[in-house]
């Protein structure tokens, strides 16, 4: 016990040194904040610390931090009392939110800030709010509705958003199906050919940021064959959209003769794609096998678990991850606070699996993917773990927290949202403890 106490004291001391160091060396008044004594319950690489900015905010999904350091968070589900967007402000510089306000009467997932506007999505529409020069929303009651009438099925209904530097916004429209079977999620049911869902979902649509009430008619199907994307980010260094696809579920349940429970838990990969206009990732016709590193024909479309797809229309992923981890947040790190290796690499928030049962569940962590020459090196690592609060997650309901959204603060801190308890984490790096 005494050991723990002195360790905690020592780490406090180290972090306070850095606060002083930051005071004297930074000219832009950005002061490193003190992590919580237990690093907010997270396991982090040496030199990193974490604190809870706020807690118990509801189903907090994606989030964004303004240039002034205020945190805007999109809340999913049926919201009451204008709690669709929550704004956190740290008024005394301790990193904790002293001021919590809210606006917006719609649930949703997507949120972003670009060129003086805050953008936020419901499951069918995208709105934007003009910001003043302090980063505050000028009129919280009357946003401009820029996109409307997007397809919202019974699954994969969230609309994540990302913006480029040329006045375009990219919206994920998830496929309202697991694998485009005639009877969704029914054993042995074959795939519909061609899959009719792809005309209005299962891809990324591009719209203009400044045109009101755009519908499918004004949008461009920018990428297709993507079952569902929750995490996506515009990489400004490469000037390119990157997305994380949630791979299909239930290979064993639906085709038990072709896949045993272990194969079903390990396949297919969760995949990152570097998107160009017209990219086709191949859903529902194929999936990516993380062990064979091949595109495999889906069993609904004549696959036998091994048959490789040779269709040149389908793109390869930039990098593949273990199955079912549920990538819900993607962020290219451009800050200067973290060590140099993190710059221009990708953080991914994996929400955590449910589709690995009866094997133990996996994910529930934030990983880092180093990039070199604009491509992932392939050597990804777990960056922040311990969200679930348990060594092994057997049932998804048991996880205390599930990481969902990622954002970068103006000082280079990494923010992570949790949509179980509505906890907002802030991860900081302390040069003194390197």
């Amino acid at each position, binding site marked *: 016990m005494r050991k723990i106490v002195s360790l905690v004291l020592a780490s406090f001391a180290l972090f306070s040194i850095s606060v002083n160091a930051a005071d004297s060396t930074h000219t832009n008044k950005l002061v490193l904040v003190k992590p919580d004594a237990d690093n907010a319950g997270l396991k982090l690489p040496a030199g990193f610390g974490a604190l809870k900015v706020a807690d118990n905010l509801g189903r907090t999904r994606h989030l964004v931090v303004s240039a002034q350091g205020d945190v805007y968070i999109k809340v999913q589900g049926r919201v009451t009392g204008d709690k669709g967007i929550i704004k956190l402000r740290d008024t005394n510089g301790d990193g904790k939110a002293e001021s919590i306000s809210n606006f917006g009467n719609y649930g949703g997932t997507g949120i972003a800030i670009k060129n003086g506007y805050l953008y936020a999505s419901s499951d069918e529409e995208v709105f934007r709010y003009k910001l003043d020069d302090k980063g505050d929303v000028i009129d919280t009651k009357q946003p401009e509705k820029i996109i409307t009438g997007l397809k919202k099925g*019974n*699954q994969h209904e969230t609309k994540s958003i990302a913006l480029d530097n040329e006045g375009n916004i990219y919206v994920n429209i998830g496929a309202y199906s697991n694998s485009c079977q005639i009877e969704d999620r029914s054993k042995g049911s074959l795939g519909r050919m061609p899959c009719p869902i792809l005309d209005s979902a299962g891809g990324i649509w591009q719209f203009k940021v400044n045109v009101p009430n755009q519908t499918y008619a004004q949008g461009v199907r920018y990428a297709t064959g993507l079952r569902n994307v929750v995490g996506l980010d515009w990489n400004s260094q490469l000037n390119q959209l990157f997305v994380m696809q949630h791979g299909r*579920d239930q290979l064993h349940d639906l085709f038990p003769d072709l896949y045993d429970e272990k194969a079903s838990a390990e396949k297919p990969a969760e995949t990152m794609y570097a998107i160009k206009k017209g990219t086709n990732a191949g859903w529902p016709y194929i999936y990516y096998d993380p062990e064979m590193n091949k595109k495999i024909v889906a069993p609904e479309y004549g696959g036998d678990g091994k048959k490789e797809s040779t269709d040149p229309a389908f793109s390869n992923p930039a990098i593949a991850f273990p199955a079912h981890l549920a990538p819900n947040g993607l962020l290219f790190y451009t800050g200067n606070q973290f060590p140099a290796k993190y710059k221009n690499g990708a953080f991914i928030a994996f929400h955590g699996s449910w589709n690995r049962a009866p094997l133990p569940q996996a994910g529930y962590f934030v990983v880092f993917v180093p990039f070199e020459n604009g491509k992932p090196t392939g050597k990804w690592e777990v960056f922040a773990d311990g969200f679930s609060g348990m060594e092994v997650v*057997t*049932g*998804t*309901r*048991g996880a205390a927290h599930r990481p969902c959204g990622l954002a970068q603060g103006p000082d280079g801190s990494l923010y992570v949202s949790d949509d*179980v308890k509505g906890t907002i984490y802030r991860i900081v790096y302390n040069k003194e403890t390197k």
Partner: protein
Amino acid sequence: MKAIKFGVVVLTAFLLINSQNSVAGEQPAQSSLKASIARGKELYLVQCLACHQVDGGGVPHLNAPLDGSANVKGIDKAKLIKIVLNGLKGEEIEGENYSNVMAPHKELTDQQIADILTYVRNAWSNKASQVTVAEVKTVRAKLK
């Protein structure tokens, strides 16, 4: 000494007869419930576990929980039977929306459905009455 020995024998015999009596008395209902739960558990692992999970907790906002569910434990067994036969899609359950669809399971026999439902009504923290083959048969006939 002999008397004591005799007493032990009598007592043992009495206990034996008594316990046999009680087994004989309760056996049909009790053992049929136990056997149904055991069969139901095996079927649950194959048919239900992927979505409803090993702890019956489901997956928040995706797949409805069975453990602790008023619907699962409730008296309206016909409603439960119908859900297994027809599946479920886009319906609000106990004030919550669940994104995933539940496929219909008409291919299961009346016995299998009775066993699965008897199991989920008596697994984890749940405790409720048995679902019988006759009850499943009645509901299935009405759906035709």
